[in-house]
């Protein structure tokens, strides 16, 4: 089997509109959560979220292409451009045939759906823009990335709610590892901070009204965010031959289904996914130096994820830093594990562990070291990134420091 490394990263999220700015914000423990600005916000009970700021689509795309691009696709394309530029890749015809795209998203063109339902149902319009379908489809981001860079190999979109990006990246990892492609662009993006998207989440009664406090005893739920991240996954020898910058090695991937409840989390499913990822990487649990948790900030998730981590890590959990960066960039649903992978890369390449901010009080039912409020210097060789979706679908990635 071939080895797979990450040679580029790009992002747009509430903390920053590029990866360098995001690393800085993660180190400084900045909070991207603030008042929502969507239409009819006065009809929402949830009025805070982690919105992207200072993102002007017209700076990135010619006006005549914007009708084809929902916000989730714009985010993905801008992140992909940054990742490809960082990697220094030129996709000629030959490499294009050996390269592909796998992106994750839960809501796809949710804002486009919302706007156009409003037009036809609420405003009584009988006509919609001709590009509504290509704009809203879940594979739009994947397709636009493949078109922009001429990537003609395997390309598709994965949709597994809050684990979409990890499932996507796990799939891309396996394709490069088994030789189906030399380069894959992969990650996830989400943009559903519109009235309908927030209203739907509000219904579940799991949203915090003020902010997101994962693993803190006084946590009151999740905060939605928007954004995404894209990475270049490249076969190790291919990357070395062209002298590419190597951010980290993708070491293992594990996935599982709870086969339990549609929304309530489970201990056994995540345990099996984490163990599968470690086993796939050939890494012992006690060698993990940092875990980027799913850590949604709901009462149930953080307690159950902590129990699952205890089962997998045993006594090692007592000195293992486990943080949830959702406290800063919000829960970006299908794109969240892509943005969270940046925190994993930062730990490996810069030796800085991102904190769990907004943490006020330790919860004896949660992980012993949630890295409260302040980033920490640590030499980390192995990281694990958890994503546990509604529907009980779990996906865990394990990364190793650059070889």
């Amino acid at each position: 089997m071939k080895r797979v490394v990450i040679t580029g990263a790009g992002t747009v999220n509430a903390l920053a509109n590029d990866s360098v700015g995001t690393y800085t914000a993660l180190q400084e423990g900045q909070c991207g959560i603030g008042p929502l600005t969507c239409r009819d916000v006065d009809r929402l009970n949830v009025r805070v979220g982690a919105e992207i700021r200072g993102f002007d689509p017209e700076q990135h795309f010619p006006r005549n292409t914007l009708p084809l691009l929902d916000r989730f696709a714009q985010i993905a394309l801008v992140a992909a451009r940054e990742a490809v530029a960082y990697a220094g890749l030129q996709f000629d015809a030959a490499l294009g045939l050996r390269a592909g795209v796998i992106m994750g998203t839960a809501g796809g063109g949710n804002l486009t759906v919302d706007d156009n339902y409003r037009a036809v149902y609420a405003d009584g319009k009988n006509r919609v823009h001709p590009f509504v379908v290509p704009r809203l489809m879940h594979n739009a981001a994947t397709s636009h990335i493949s078109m922009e860079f001429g990537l003609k190999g395997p390309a598709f979109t994965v949709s597994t709610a809050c684990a979409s990006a990890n499932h996507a990246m796990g799939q891309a990892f396996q394709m490069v590892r088994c030789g189906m492609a030399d380069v894959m662009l992969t990650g996830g993006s989400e943009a559903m901070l519109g009235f309908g998207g927030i209203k739907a989440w509000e219904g579940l009664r799991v949203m915090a009204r003020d902010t997101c406090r994962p693993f803190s005893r006084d946590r009151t739920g999740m905060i939605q965010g928007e954004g995404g991240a894209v990475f270049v996954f490249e076969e190790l020898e291919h990357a070395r031959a062209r002298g590419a910058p190597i951010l980290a090695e993708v070491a293992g991937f594990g996935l599982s289904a709870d086969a339990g409840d549609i929304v309530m989390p489970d201990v056994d499913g995540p345990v099996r996914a984490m163990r599968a990822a470690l086993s796939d990487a050939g890494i012992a649990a006690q060698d993990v130096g940092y875990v980027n948790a799913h850590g949604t900030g709901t009462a149930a998730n953080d307690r159950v994820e902590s129990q699952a981590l205890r089962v997998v890590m045993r006594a090692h959990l007592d000195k293992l830093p486990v943080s949830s960066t959702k406290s800063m960039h919000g829960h970006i649903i299908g794109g969240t594990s892509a943005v969270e992978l940046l925190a994993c890369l930062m730990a490996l390449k810069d030796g800085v562990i991102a904190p769990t901010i907004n943490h006020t009080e330790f919860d004896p039912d949660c992980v012993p070291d949630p890295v409260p409020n302040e980033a920490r210097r640590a030499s980390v060789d192995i990281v694990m990134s958890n994503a546990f979706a509604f529907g009980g679908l779990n996906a865990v990635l394990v990364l190793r420091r650059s070889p």
Partner: protein
Amino acid sequence: MGLEYMQTTTDTALRVIDIIAQQAMLDTSEVGMDMAMSDLGLDSLGLVECIFGIEEAFDISVPFNANAPDQAEFDISTVGAIISEVEKLIARKAA
């Protein structure tokens, strides 16, 4: 639950019991005032659906967050407690 109980049961109480019974897939006669949601086999999601049903039925907004079910704003400890909270919300709406 004898005659005395029936006489003291308000319309609001009957409707709340009906909503809870439907969600728990029980007959209304099986729902007692002192029963907790767990006694009725209702998990947190079932409770969220009950709250939604109550809000729709009475056109009120119930302050309930599934992350902090023990919060003081809305007592959900028993069927009777929920009914009394709903009656308070209806009275506040009318005021």
